[in-house]
């Protein structure tokens, strides 16, 4: 229904305005509805505008790989804040991020772990260090996956 959609949209918008500056340590972000001439809300598109700290407002295509990933994470968690999913699987979303942004991402994530269970596939040692539990997957027999127990300590030496 239209009211429900508009209500959710404005909640996400407010969350995005709040979460983006937290992740980027400054800057601004906003989303807006793109309405066609007959103002039909249920068929409108959604426009995303972001402004990393110190920069001008710009088209999201001019953002860097890491800035785009971080903006997408900000939007994702803005949606979670409105309707938390019981669990969420994230596959290497930290790959484009430098270490400063990885720790900001981890900080944001920890605000959500009491409503959402996170299963995170990663190669990044900072992400691994903040995990509650850790699973190693291996192919000791070529072509056949199996699990190995891994301790966080092990990871600090060898990052493979």
């Amino acid at each position, binding site marked *: 229904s239209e009211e429900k959609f508009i209500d959710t949209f404005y909640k996400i918008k407010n969350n995005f305005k709040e979460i983006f500056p937290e992740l980027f340590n400054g800057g601004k972000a906003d989303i807006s509805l793109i309405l066609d001439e007959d103002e039909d809300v249920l068929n409108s598109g959604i426009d995303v505008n972001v402004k990393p700290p110190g920069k001008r407002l710009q088209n999201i*295509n001019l953002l860097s790989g890491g800035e785009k*990933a971080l903006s997408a994470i900000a939007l994702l968690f803005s949606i979670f804040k409105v309707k938390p*999913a019981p*669990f969420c699987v994230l596959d290497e*979303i930290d790959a484009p991020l430098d270490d400063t942004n990885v720790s900001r991402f981890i900080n944001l994530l920890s605000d959500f772990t009491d409503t959402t269970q996170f299963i995170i596939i990663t190669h990044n040692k900072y992400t691994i260090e903040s995990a509650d539990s850790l699973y190693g997957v*291996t*192919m000791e027999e070529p072509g056949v996956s199996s699990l190995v127990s891994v301790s966080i300590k092990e990871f600090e030496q060898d990052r493979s």
Partner: protein
Amino acid sequence: MFIKQLELVGFKSFAEKTTVNFSDGMTCIVGPNGCGKSNIGEAIRWVFGEQSAKKLRGSSMDDFIFNGTNQRKPLNRAEVTITLNNENNILPSEYNDVTVKRRVFSDGQSEYFINNQKCRLKDVRNLITDTGIGISAYSFIEQGMISEILSSDPTERRRIFEEAA
């Protein structure tokens, strides 16, 4: 509600029965390239009834059955069972633990089970509607796709917002 356990048998590279126990906080899955990490994420998405093989990097449902190695023959079926902790009664079931199982055969046909009772896909869907579980766009972010939320066309973005409404 959270995922307590995931069991894979014959699903993609998991030829042998493999059990993963999850904690309700943050679980990290690590390992070298090609060892099967993303396959675990896809097993979670698949067991809840994902119908598009393409979303799980396959072209048809039998792509998910272990297809053999130099030392092993291909299997003829794949099976994934997920156990959910339902202590806070989010799922419409009187059990504390609810299990959902999906099995696929080499003809591509799937079978579904809830608490080991055979059922239809529709029953699995009914079980998880309105819980936020699911095959929705925003609770599974595939490898390399994080920026899609931003760069996909505005109407695609809207679909994600609708799921949250």
